[in-house]
């Protein structure tokens, strides 16, 4: 078990250390995730119903209101 965990650790450790093109790709992935989750999600993409209402009942009432007006 100890050896297995050690091998898994080394698989990732050596893999990341020896990356060449992979380093550039990881930079792109991290920038992309930052743009998505920090900039877009935090500033632009609020969950409309979650932000506006505190409970599911209020959300249901609002949507029924929208569907029947």
């Amino acid at each position, binding site marked *: 078990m100890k050896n297995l965990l050690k*091998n898994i650790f*080394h*698989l*990732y450790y*050596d*893999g*990341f250390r020896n990356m060449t*093109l*992979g380093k*550039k*790709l*990881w930079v*792109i*992935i991290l920038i*992309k*995730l930052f*743009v*998505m989750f920090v900039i*877009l*999600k935090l500033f*632009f*993409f*609020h*969950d*409309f*119903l*979650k932000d506006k209402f505190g409970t*599911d009942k209020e*959300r*249901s*009432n609002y*949507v*029924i*209101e*929208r*569907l*029947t*007006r």
Partner: protein
Amino acid sequence: MIDNVDLSLVDWSRAQFALTAMYHWLFVPLTLGLSFIVAFMETLYVKTGNPEWKRITKFWMTLFGINFAIGVATGIILEFEFGTNWSNYSWFVGDIFGAPLAIEGIMAFFLESTFIAVMFFGWNKVSPKFHLTSTWLVAIGANLSALWILVANAWMQYPVGMHFNPDSARNEMINFWDVLFSPMAVFKFLHTISSGFTMASIFVVGISAWFLLKKRDILFAKRSIIVAAVFGLISALFTATTGDSSARFVAQKQPMKFAAFEGLYDGSHGASLLAFGVISNQPKASGNYLPDIKIRVEIPNLLSYLAYLDLNAYVPGINNLINGDEKIGLLSAQEKINRGKVARNVLKAYKEAKEQKDLAVADVLRTQFDDPKFQANYFKYFGYGFLNDVNSLVPNVPLTFYSFHIMVILGFYFIIFFVYMLILAFKDNLENKRKFLKLAVWTLPLPYIAEQAGWVLAEVGRQPWVIQDYLPTVAAVSQIEASAVQITFWLFAIVFTALAIAEVSIMIKQIKLGPKEGGE
């Protein structure tokens, strides 16, 4: 309700969703197909022990890695948009959409993320068979991820296995298997992944043809071409078959979409297939959409056969679907709108009775709402109740028509392309056919066009619906500022364009480097 909706908000929300979905779909199909091609190549390496196959596998695996890294998580933005721009829709679909997406997230995370590390880092760390198993699991995991997304999309086109709860305003899943195994979901999944396989095969063939043109890495290029062309031909044939089955189902369940992409205005028994035409929208004051088809090439009776496997079957056209036909039990669009309004009014009365705590009336209305006859005759047309104009039920015919025909023409071209490629490959005559090799390189963008055309057909063709017959697109949007959607539209355009440029430039650089000696 429609009168209260800011149409520019609807248009910008649709444009934003289309932009993000189309960019996302630049990356996904290549991942779906290339993962299998790499798995085939590695299988040959493990079977033969020939290091050339390892070299080949590692080269294509690197390109797979680039595409995967650039494309990964681009689909998450679509989920952001559901919550922000499409909150009515998100609430209305309830757990039917949530469940497949959650399964997809878990599967994608565990299968792809775990085994992709072994795939890239494990060459000298694990046994060849374990490595090969990981490569196959990445391919299967990526394609299973696509399954759940496509199941969710298919449900929007053909909603089954659910019951609408008038208390929560949400659809509740009553039969998971109906949702998972609906013919729409099965055909959509098979058609979509096989088109991804075709795209990846053309990608491999096109790049390998470039190597042959440059007289570089000849053995690598020829072997890559054989694997990809065999896989591509099987996939392209399968794509055509599943597309045919899919269209037959669409003819039954989304007849307006079918009529639009076939350019059929006036239906008939023994309907002709409009194989080629120059078409434009011509709404007429009388209410009929008169076709303005300048050039037409028709094949008699073929449309009836394709739709119902009967040369004389009746296929309704756009005008028939709008005007209805009592003789064959086809309800007019106006009648559907009237029934939809009845369903909406019952829901409204039920809501008001509950608010006024008039439980007796609420009970009666709830019983009426749940009555199977009411469900079949009125709630079935709930979405029509949001519409006032019958003409709003007709999608953009020229766009749908051309998208369909571009997709089909390219699909047949790919079959011929692979057949000829394989003939030349088996005759060992590829290097001498330089014009054809150039054609192979120039074919590379075409599957991208076919893929995008397929989605335009699927999504534009089903308008005005976001959920077929139950919720029109105009009723699905959140009440937010159109300007906010415009800002994020342009933000996405910039981010995704940067990603696409990054992908293409890194890919080109890596392709020029070519496969490394000894596969290291």
